[in-house]
């Protein structure tokens, strides 16, 4: 039981944080500038042509959708490319296991860290939304714990892929075959209602639609129609991901 509750994984989070801190300025600029360019370019340009969508100006619709999407992207990227570097290229995890650390500690640490990076990126979108006057007041801040859950769901999934990967090329399939189609059917850039019902069911089985609905509900006040389902799906992906990744990485590292 004490083993189950051990906080040793925080050493891993701290290690990754120390590396990130060295690249703090470019990383933060990227986190802020990238969504700003997207939002302003896409939202203002396209938004001028569009009517209100689901009762929202297009820019507000887009910004609230992008909070979940950006969290997903950032957490996935970290748990794929950066984690694979530490697993394979740099053998960082192998070194950590010479110390009194376990595979479980490594996976929990990476899972948490990638989720936190996702939160940082999602929060940057929120900051931009505040700056553009798309959201106001305190309520939108309640989206932060929600995107932590979004980050945990996607970093868990990505760690499973990393545990199976033989090279970086593998991740291209994950983005092309899963992340990009999911983005298109999950109501991030346009409402999913107009899509065929089969596609809508598929979207409901994937985590991004739920992340998008929750983010819109908390930030721009759109009514939440199924908040318990939204949370349950994200929790399920997060837990299934981290457990499967731990099992797979134990097999890979302890052979």
């Amino acid at each position: 039981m004490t083993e189950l509750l051990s906080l040793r994984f925080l050493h891993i989070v701290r290690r990754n944080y120390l590396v990130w801190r060295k690249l703090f300025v470019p990383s933060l600029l990227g986190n802020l500038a990238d969504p700003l360019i997207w939002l302003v370019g896409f939202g203002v340009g396209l938004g001028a042509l569009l009517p209100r969508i689901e009762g929202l100006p297009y820019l507000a619709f887009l910004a609230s959708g992008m909070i979940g999407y950006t969290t997903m992207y950032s957490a996935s990227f970290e748990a794929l490319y950066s984690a694979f570097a530490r697993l394979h290229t740099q053998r960082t995890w192998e070194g950590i296991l010479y110390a009194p650390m376990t595979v479980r500690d490594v996976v929990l640490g990476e899972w948490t860290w990638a989720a936190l990076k996702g939160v940082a990126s999602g929060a940057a979108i929120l900051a931009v939304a505040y700056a553009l006057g798309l959201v106001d007041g305190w309520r939108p801040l309640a989206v932060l714990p929600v995107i932590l859950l979004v980050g945990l769901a996607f970093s868990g999934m990505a760690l499973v892929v990393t545990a199976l990967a033989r090279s970086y090329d593998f991740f291209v399939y994950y983005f092309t075959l899963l992340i990009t189609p999911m983005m298109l059917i999950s109501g991030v850039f346009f409402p999913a209602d107009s899509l065929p019902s089969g596609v809508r069911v598929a979207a409901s089985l994937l985590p991004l639609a739920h992340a998008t609905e929750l983010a819109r509900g908390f930030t721009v006040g759109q009514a939440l129609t199924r908040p318990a389902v939204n949370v349950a799906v994200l929790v399920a992906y997060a837990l299934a991901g981290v457990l499967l990744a731990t099992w797979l990485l134990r097999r890979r590292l302890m052979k």
Partner: protein
Amino acid sequence: MLTVENLRKRYGSQEVVRGVTFRVAEGECFGLLGPNGAGKTTTLKCILGLTEPSAGRIELAGYPVPQAARQARYRVGVVPQFDNLDPDFTVRENLVVFGRYFGLRTADVLARVPALLEFAGLAEKADARIETLSGGMKRRLTLARALVNDPQVLFMDEPTTGLDPQARHLIWDRLKRLVADGKTLVLTTHFMDEAERLCDRVGIMDNGQIIALDAPQALIARSIEPQVVEVYGEGVQRWVEKHGRTLAQRVEFTGETAFCYCQDAAAILDSLESWPALKALRRAANLEDVFIKLTGRDIRD
């Protein structure tokens, strides 16, 4: 300090460790020797709890492994065959971050860093980036990193593979100092001179089993003739057939060189006087001769 009994490790249908038994006493330097694929690295991984043995019993620093491997690793340092220093950190940061994995406080590790870097000959390099270090410096930093928790026992997998002679001698010097300080050392190597120089006792592994286990000098005295004459040059085959086989106890060929093992080299050297085309090198038998006698001359890939 370390007990290994009847250790076995199977991968699928292949058993790479087949009943290995040995003990290492506190303060001893023990070498595990063997050709590539003999099972040395797998044995080390089992001992450290980094893979599950198929059978056998291991006790490391008073803890049963793999059951309490994590607790045992608090008392253990590891220098791997391939460097896995953290390239995102400086030399000092590598030590501090690694120390934290042992639950050490940052201030406590920082206080130890100067002594560790001094020991590793990296005192000037505390703020250097890893990519600027030479191969020898990286290996020494890995050694310093393995000492960050002041371990009782240090495991080194091929500690000097890939290093130039100067760098090897520096590593050997440091390892001798550690043994003098009372640390227990377990190393794998396929450099016999390294084992002969450093190890109090060696175990020679082949095909997953220990086939000889003793002090290097005792193994040499017990297993092999004391003198060797290496003979090579035009006509060496004819000389061996005419004289070599009768004058030496044993003759072996590697390529065009005849290794003549004997009690006394004088007769062989006399006979070679009348074969001016042949060159000869006379030397005392060493651990490498024992190793090759026991494991054969075939190439292992």
